[in-house]
């Protein structure tokens, strides 16, 4: 593997790591229970699946409230400002370079801990999939109030379910790709280790 000298960098703070892993667990659990409610398979039984799904959903909402607060108070939200710079280089790297041990086009620092593709992907999860799944989910949860609130004139459960399912599939695709891409560090488990300990091993900057 790489013969370069490695240097350790503290990139993922304690809150971030707790957030990440509990979110990961909740999302996987929501996918499992959600697709059971949807009718794709049977495991817990419909009633339990619905209850678990609802509890997990509210837990994730709570987690997001904290996460949003954290990102804005720490300024970490800037990590997700999208950039197109080097996106082509990243794509080229994953398509070709990675197979021939070419150098990674992105060098991680504490101020830029996500590569440009990551930024775009995570921003998409947080600004598109997230809201889509939350709003459709809330419409679902508050279905019993639709009539009293007059929403039944504008909403149809069929469409709410349709978009909720689309968002769920998108989350599933993200999950598969995301988990795979964690293995593309300098060792297959390097990124996962970093997400647990907070310390990422990066190639040492070449001194002038």
């Amino acid at each position, binding site marked *: 593997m790489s013969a370069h000298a490695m240097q350790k960098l503290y990139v993922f703070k304690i809150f971030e790591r707790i957030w990440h892993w509990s979110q990961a667990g909740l999302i996987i659990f929501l996918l499992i229970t959600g697709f059971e409610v949807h009718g794709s398979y049977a495991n817990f039984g419909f009633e339990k699946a619905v209850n678990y799904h609802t509890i997990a959903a509210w837990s994730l909402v709570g987690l997001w409230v904290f996460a949003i607060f954290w990102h804005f108070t720490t300024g970490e939200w800037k990590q997700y400002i999208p950039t197109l710079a080097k996106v082509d280089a990243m794509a080229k790297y994953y398509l070709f370079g990675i197979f021939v041990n070419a150098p990674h086009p992105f060098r991680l620092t504490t101020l830029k801990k996500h590569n440009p593709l990551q930024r775009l992907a995570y921003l998409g999860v947080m600004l598109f999939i997230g809201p889509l799944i939350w709003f459709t989910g809330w419409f679902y949860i508050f279905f*019993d109030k639709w009539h009293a609130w007059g929403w*039944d004139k504008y909403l149809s459960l069929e469409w709410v379910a349709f978009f909720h*399912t689309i968002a769920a*599939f998108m989350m599933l695709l993200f999950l*598969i790709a995301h988990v*795979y891409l964690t293995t593309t560090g300098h060792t297959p488990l390097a990124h996962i280790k970093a997400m647990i300990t907070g310390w990422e091993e990066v190639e040492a900057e070449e001194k002038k």
Partner: protein
Amino acid sequence: MRITHILLAALAGLSLAAGASEPPAAAPAAPAAAAAPAAPAKMLSSTADHSKFKELQQSFKSGPEVTKACLSCHTEAAKQIHKTKHWTWEWVNPENNQKLGKKNVINNFCTATASNEKFCSSCHVGYGMENAKTFDYTSETNVDCLVCHDTTGAYKKLPGLAGHPTYKDIEFPPGSGKIAKAVDLPKIAQAVGKTSRDTCGACHFFGGGGDAVKHGDLDSSLKKPAKYLDVHMDAKGLNFSCATCHATQGHNIPGSRYTPTGKAEDAAHMRGKENKGNPASCQSCHGSAPHKAKERLNSHTDKIACQTCHVPQFARAQPTKMTWDWSTAGKLTPDGKRMKIPDASGHHDKYDSIKGNFTYESDVVPEYAWLNGKVKYTLLGDPVNTQGVTKINEYGGSPTDGQSRIWPLKVFRGKQPYDLETKSLLVPHTAVGYGEKDDSGFWANYKWDAALKAGAAAAGQPFSGKFDFVSTEMSWPITHMVAPKADALTCTQCHAKNGRLASIKGVYMPRRDANGMLDIIGWLLAAATLAGVLIHGGLRTYLGRKG
């Protein structure tokens, strides 16, 4: 000797008073009680003891005489009754001006009352209805108070007597050798009280010609039901009477199949407060969000009637009639006698010469439909559907009208006579009056031509003389016999591909409905992504090793 009798009676009275929680019905068990003035064994909940009223201490000879006595105090009672369907047997549906009521509707059980009143009016709250067209609907003394207010259980109106009880011992049914005793009018009159499951049930449990025949959710098992059968009427529990829900004012009883409340929107309302809602709806007590422990269930109440989940089956205590084919009626034994063929259960007939073929079923899973409370009947003169099935009654309702909920129904199917030329349902003259010789009654002579001719004449309808039998169905919304919550439907009885609501349209149900195209695309993309990363990873490993 006489003194010992009185002493014994006093002792019996004392012991009864001591066990005051027992109903007074125990009194006749003490052999000597009759000799002494009956001491009230139990504190009356009413403030009036009718046995003390001089007006009722007469030797009544007939029902109308009793009514006259009742009306001497209850001056407005008969006037109130006169306004009700129980009396008029007629009701005009304001939605479509259809004339309904027993006088006018045709069903697919015994079909219709016209020409059969002497028999059918044993369930009229009046005396002497021999002909619904000519009956004096203004008579106050012909109102039958006792049929609803009897508390003894001894008051009986036998079919064939035009709404009268028996005033002398008679052989009943005629030719059976059995004797029906004359009713003891003074005793019954002195014991009048509130209506009860027994009095309402005397007619409503036996609709369609026998116990449990008609409704499927109303039968004699409700006289003293256990909790499993009816949580509200549970004789050892809440012990509701019919009127607990059918809270009545001025003798006008709310909660009618002619004007069902498809979608009761009320919050629970306090009894006595003015409210235009139907008190005989679940919501009038429970409101629209009754599930406390499992709140998610409240998301169902806008679309689904309570009964759909809480009356999981009907005919749970005894079988109800599900089909009736009149076209086979009239087959006789070789020596020309009426025959009855019992069904597999042995408790019911599957064939009876006077009525045709039947089927009975127990624990029936209802059919389901959107109901908004509007109903249209196929009445005399309305065309039947000779190609398919004629709906005797058709309930309105749709997922989009905002006034409907999904309701459970008993759908009763049959075949009955119609006129080949007028295409109208026909009314057969079936039953004959007690002791009468009447050659046209089908149940006496098994001749369709004569029976249909007489029926049509009584109903005032033309009859071409040519008839056949047409398939009909009639829907009965199921609402009684509410099961304990543990027996209510579970989620997956509907939230499944082939669940109970499989045929219900206009509502999205998770696990029953999913967009098939979206699922295919979604799973294909997921599989492609997985395949993509596996190939990518495989290549990396392979090339990495090589390098």
